[in-house]
């Protein structure tokens, strides 16, 4: 895993957002540096939803914040709509901000409890001095209606009068009011119940069509990311493991880590076959002292000597499928299945089409 390299990037003129060789470091105790994101490259085409998955601590939120320049990355470039955000000064960056917005995980703490919903949603318009009072009001009503809230009753209420799901819809309305091109959703449904989660996921799909949005959707839930994404990037310890369209990624994962993640998901079907644990026991290594070579090798069931010595580069293994692994599970170098101790076949069973 470890994947460095840029083989999975598309030509610069076809994408809205392009992240190249992104490094984000934080100071740690004893003068050391934690490398939360390390040599990460990704891109998002206009109108596309990029899903970013990984376990906690893998750097997905750090990546989102680096794109937002909150704070700017240590190294690397973030090219949004042809402009390198990391090279812009404060005011020129601020002028671009309406075009890229973010939705955070906890909807209740991201709304000011003392302000009315109408004012919260109108705030970005006021900051940018857009339209007259009446035009602003009409725009606020339009986005509130778009997120499934009744503007007439919602406008004058305060956040505590809404449930978590409704608050998340208010947060989404607030990001939409400036008509952004790119919306980054950082775990937007993780704090919500499943039934409410479905509301938000459907809503994001509708809004994407209605407003022509490009989304970066960050979550630790692989089933959610499969549902919303056009392209999925799996991260591990600050690096990219695998990038592929969702149906391909879940049908035929090329990276052992992707396969392990998919096998770990409990399927809500008691008839589903029991799956063997695909990971070596153990937790995420410390990003203060990442393993040499491939960062996943300490938990990888397929690790060889080469994995410790040499960091794998991202490379293509199939149509639109890219993996950073010396011994991927698909592609010309894929191991014969018999030597695979049933590992891959169990994946195929687990992710095949439903028989019911």
């Amino acid at each position, binding site marked *: 895993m470890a994947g460095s390299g840029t083989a999975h990037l598309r030509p610069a003129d076809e994408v809205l957002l392009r992240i190249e060789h992104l490094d984000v470091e934080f100071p740690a105790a004893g003068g050391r540096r934690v490398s939360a994101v390390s040599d990460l490259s990704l891109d998002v085409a206009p109108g596309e939803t990029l899903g970013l998955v990984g376990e906690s601590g893998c750097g997905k939120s750090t990546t989102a914040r680096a794109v937002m320049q909150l704070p700017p990355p240590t190294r690397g470039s973030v090219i949004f709509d042809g402009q390198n955000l990391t090279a812009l000064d404060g005011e020129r960056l601020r002028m671009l901000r309406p075009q890229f917005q973010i939705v955070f995980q906890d909807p209740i703490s991201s709304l000011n409890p003392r302000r009315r919903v109408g004012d919260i949603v109108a705030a970005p318009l006021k900051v940018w001095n857009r339209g007259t009072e009446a035009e602003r009001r009409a725009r606020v009503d339009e986005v509130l209606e778009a997120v499934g809230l009744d503007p007439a009753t919602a406008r004058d209420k305060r956040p505590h009068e809404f449930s978590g799901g409704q608050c998340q819809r208010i947060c989404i309305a607030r990001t939409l009011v400036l008509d952004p091109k790119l919306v980054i959703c950082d775990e937007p449904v993780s704090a919500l119940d499943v039934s409410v989660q479905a509301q938000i996921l459907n809503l994001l799909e509708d809004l994407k069509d209605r407003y022509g949005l490009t989304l970066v959707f960050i979550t630790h839930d692989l089933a959610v990311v499969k549902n919303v994404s056009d392209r999925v990037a799996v991260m591990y310890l600050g690096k990219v493991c695998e990038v592929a369209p969702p149906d391909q990624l879940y049908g035929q994962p090329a990276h052992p880590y992707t396969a392990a993640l998919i096998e770990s998901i409990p399927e809500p*079907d008691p008839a589903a076959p029991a799956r063997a644990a695909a990971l070596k026991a153990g937790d995420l290594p410390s990003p203060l002292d990442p393993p040499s070579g491939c960062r996943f090798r300490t938990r990888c069931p397929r690790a060889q000597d080469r994995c410790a010595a040499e960091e794998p580069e991202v490379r293509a293994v199939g149509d639109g499928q890219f993996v950073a692994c010396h011994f991927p599970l698909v592609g010309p170098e894929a191991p014969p299945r018999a030597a695979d101790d049933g590992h891959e076949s169990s994946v195929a069973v687990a992710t095949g089409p439903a028989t019911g």
Partner: protein
Amino acid sequence: MIGRRKQVTAVADAPPAHGRRLLEVEDLATHFVTPRGLVRAVDGVSFSLERGKTLGLVGESGCGKSVLSRSIMGLLPSNVERHGSVEFEGQRLDQLGPAELRSFWGTQIAMVFQDPMTSLNPVMRIGRQITEPLRFHFDMDRGQAEKIALSLLESVNIPEPARRLRQYPHELSGGMRQRVVIAIALACGPKLLFADEPTTALDVTVQAQILELLRTQQRERDMAMVLVTHDLGVVAGHTDEVAVMYAGQIVEQAPTRTLFSSMRMPYTAALLQSIPRLTNASHTRLNVIAGRPPDLLDPPPGCRFAPRCPYAQDRCREEQPPLIEADEPGHLYRCWYPVGTDEAREALERNLAAHVPQAELAVSGDMTRAAEVEAALEGAGAAAGPAAYESDGSAADGPDGTPADQADASADESDGSSGDTAGGTEASSGPDGAEVEIGGSD
């Protein structure tokens, strides 16, 4: 000290006259006395559990599943009224005082909580936390207790157990901490383990390991388990029986396979269908449950799910359904129009014809209809929680007073949205008019 030793012996000598039955809960109600009134967090729950079996307790936040497990254990604050009976191996737990309960906790019944960081003492070494119950209950000396602690850490697959005993919780990762919590819970060999969202704070790969660990430990010790979770996926693979809770009541209960193959309660079906599934193609439309659970201060008079239910009829709003027995043994549900029956199909068609927003939202998944449903719910006083602060909450339209122009406006937006039916049960009861379209599944 001497008194508590006696308690333990008395419990151990209790005759196993109750066969396989370990826990029997009868009509248990747990109400919180608050300044705003009585919050009916658990309202008339009955179930029983056999030795070595696992019951899954599923529901969304606020449905009373955690309060139920705490109520059975007797871990409740003082502002609570509790009725009904809890019988554990023939002994009425609800009639025991705090001192007597103390001898039950750990040795007979133990609990694993959701967040391992807050359930461990941050300033006490791991070893001391594991040996504490052993020394308290069994009067072991330190050497003996440490030996057992070491073997417990080994049995929950913690590497380098001897070193871990001298570490503090913050030195361990989340998954490792939860293993320690499990080791503590298992230390005195309980017959029943409550696992309250044991994996919710953990990553998926770690979750799989912890669930597997609980399963093997349970099998080795012939221990019964109540697995409290919001995740139907966890329940499907790790329980023998499932009870689905909604607004303080069990609304459906069945052996796990029966529940998933033939669910009767519209709430269970809706919950299952709102989960994104790996087996579905990406961009599959999810089913949506409108609104939110009722305020437990003042639950609706009829079926508690009726205000959100796509099938709800007048009878549902007026008369509370009892737990009805289904054809399969052990399958109970609480519904007048159970999913999959002709009555339910007709009810849904009637609701669709009358443009009831709950029904239309359930079929189309179109979120622009959510405002109408929520307004209707608040008008009916069903979601009166936060709206109780509001004087104009009652100004919203009632369920039948949906403005026609609003319905038309949202119909324009709903192009391309279609009722996806993830579960087989709903597919059979879908109305003829609803187009089912699942895009690009290869």
